[in-house]
């Protein structure tokens, strides 16, 4: 038997569940999970890895779209797939009967419970417009290679 240098796999999951705080953390009022939302952004926007919080700059606007976007369904808790911690929303993200006439190509997932609306991830897709239709973002396969959020 030999020792192996590694980032413990469970630690990756625990990060996703907010169980560690190497720096200053926040006072949590409960042990319940946070609420997350998804906001759409114009193709001309500049969302990306440098985002720290939800930002309305460059967010889409149109009929039946509310600033800040829609709720993300988090029915399945983060888990391990091999040594990769993974999380995928348990349902598609749906914007019902919207008209979004200006091309958009990105969605920001952010923590709606946190006071500052902490950013989680940005996902891009082919540029779209929607006219009085339902815009649906379907989720990838929930595994180590495809899950929406992966810490390998």
């Amino acid at each position, binding site marked *: 038997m030999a020792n192996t240098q590694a980032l413990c796999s469970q630690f990756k999951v625990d990060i996703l569940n907010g169980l560690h705080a190497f720096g200053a953390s926040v006072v949590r009022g409960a042990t319940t999970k946070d609420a997350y939302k998804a906001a759409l952004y114009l193709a001309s926007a500049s969302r990306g890895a440098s985002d720290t919080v939800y930002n309305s700059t460059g967010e889409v606007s149109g009929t039946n779209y509310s600033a800040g976007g829609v709720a993300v369904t988090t029915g399945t808790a983060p888990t391990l797939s091999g040594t990769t911690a993974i999380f995928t929303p348990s349902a598609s993200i749906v914007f019902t009967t919207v008209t979004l006439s200006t091309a958009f190509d990105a*969605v920001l997932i952010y923590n709606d419970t946190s006071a500052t609306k902490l950013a989680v991830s940005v996902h891009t897709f082919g540029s*779209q417009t929607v006219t009085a239709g*339902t815009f649906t973002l379907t989720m990838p396969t929930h595994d180590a290679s495809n899950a929406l959020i992966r810490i*390998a």
Partner: protein
Amino acid sequence: MERQQLLDALSALPDEAFAHVAAVCHDIARRLPDDPAFGPVGVGARACLGIPEPKPAPQAVPDATPTANDVTVGLTGVEGNGEAGGLG
């Protein structure tokens, strides 16, 4: 009635009556459907009589006005790599 009997009967008609029958046949040939279930009866009859084929009905032109559209897009995931550093 056999075909030959029919032709014999027609040829025995007076000219005026024969012309009337010919006009009726011409009209029938014009109206015969070009339906696969009947074979190329209409096309053949019209060709024999020198009747041009009827023009097909014009196709409906799609409405160019944008209509309600539902759009579905598949998301792809993002990955962060966790690594443990070596000690000095």
